[in-house]
């Protein structure tokens, strides 16, 4: 039984289909990396899988409350400390343990620092630690390594590998080689939507084309 099943999916950006006919599935322990030029629709596809926007066509099957999403913005409150930020997200997701996440992302020295005083890379590490505290099996990651240095990328790759080994799955868009030998790669370029009349228009720009 796969954690994520995507069938014949079409997603839209700006009222037009970006990609269409995308199908894949993710089992426990699997990772899938989306590739393709800028603007092909990687972010849109990830947001659709995360349930933030409805698909134009096809379907996304994921278990209830199984997706954790992380994108360019980390969802951190600059007035709260590292611990407070993490504890908040843990409680929102109905969990209490944040120590494992702190250890995994090497945040031990920063616990009482307000998030406002963290560097961009440290914020990013905190944002990724948030994934761990959600305890959700499917990670949907949009460029997770932006602003991380080489050491931190290595740290994150280790965390990701542990997540997969523990029965999780990951769907991500990234340009960096995380050294995940087992990860599959899906290039979205061939799925680029063909312009033309569609059965159900994705938005105004298709309805009146």
């Amino acid at each position: 039984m796969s954690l994520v099943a995507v069938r014949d999916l079409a997603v839209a950006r700006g009222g037009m289909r970006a990609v269409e006919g995308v199908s894949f599935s993710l089992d426990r322990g699997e990772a899938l990396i989306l590739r393709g030029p800028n603007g092909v629709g990687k972010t849109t596809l990830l947001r659709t899988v995360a349930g933030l926007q409805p698909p134009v066509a096809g379907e996304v099957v994921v278990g209830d409350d199984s997706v954790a999403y992380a994108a360019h913005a980390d969802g951190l409150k600059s007035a709260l400390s590292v611990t407070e930020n993490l504890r908040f997200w843990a409680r929102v997701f109905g969990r209490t343990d944040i120590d494992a996440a702190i250890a995994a992302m090497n945040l031990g020295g920063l616990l009482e620092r307000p998030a406002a005083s963290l560097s961009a890379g440290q914020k990013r590490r905190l944002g990724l630690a948030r994934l761990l505290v959600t305890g959700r099996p499917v990670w949907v990651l949009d460029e997770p390594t932006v602003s991380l240095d080489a050491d931190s990328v290595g740290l994150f790759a280790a965390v990701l590998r542990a997540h997969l080994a523990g029965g999780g799955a990951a769907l991500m868009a990234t340009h960096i080689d995380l050294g995940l030998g087992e990860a599959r790669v899906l290039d979205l370029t061939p799925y680029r939507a063909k312009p033309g009349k569609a059965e159900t228009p994705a938005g105004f720009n298709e309805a009146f084309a």
Partner: protein
Amino acid sequence: MIALLLRDLTLATRAGGGFGLGLAFFLILCTLVPFGVGPQGGTLALIAPGILWVGALLACLLSLDRIFALDHEDGSLDLLATAPIPLEGVVAIKAAAHWLTTGLPLVVAAPLFGLLLHLPATATPWLVLSMLIGTPALSMLGAFGAAITVGLRRGGLLLSLLVLPLYIPTLIFGAEVIRRGAEGGSTVTPLAFLAGITAAVLALMPFAAAAALRVNLR
């Protein structure tokens, strides 16, 4: 959900959270009005119910755009939308946090402002009661307006344009309660209407606001 409420309250009271701004604004308004209309107690007492309610409306408006805009900017809203809390619940909690940090202080401070405007002592309990019943509706309607304008770069002005007309029924019944209370008349009818509006708004607006949020998230 409690976690979200606590976080919003903590954020409001930390530096830059804006807690107390609404109250200060209300105070300034109540100070300015006598300069405008003259210091005669009779005139002030006559217009006090209206001024107090209009002041509450504007003080509420001041912090409305913070309800969702900050969470939208830093990405928290995306993450909350994928959290196990329904978006309707997020809206209700955020409106509640707004009320606790803006509406409730106004309710508590209202008797003092009533004093400044020569509101008769007999009307003071009605002032507090009408604000207590009416201001939750202001926060919830404001959350709807904030949800609609969350994606806009300069949504603040538009937000007031959209939200203030929605405040009219609450303003009318709220001020009427105080006016009738001051005259010693029966306040049952306007109070019932005021409570009815608040109850309906609290029950239904989270759905409309969540729908607007979903549109702005995609």
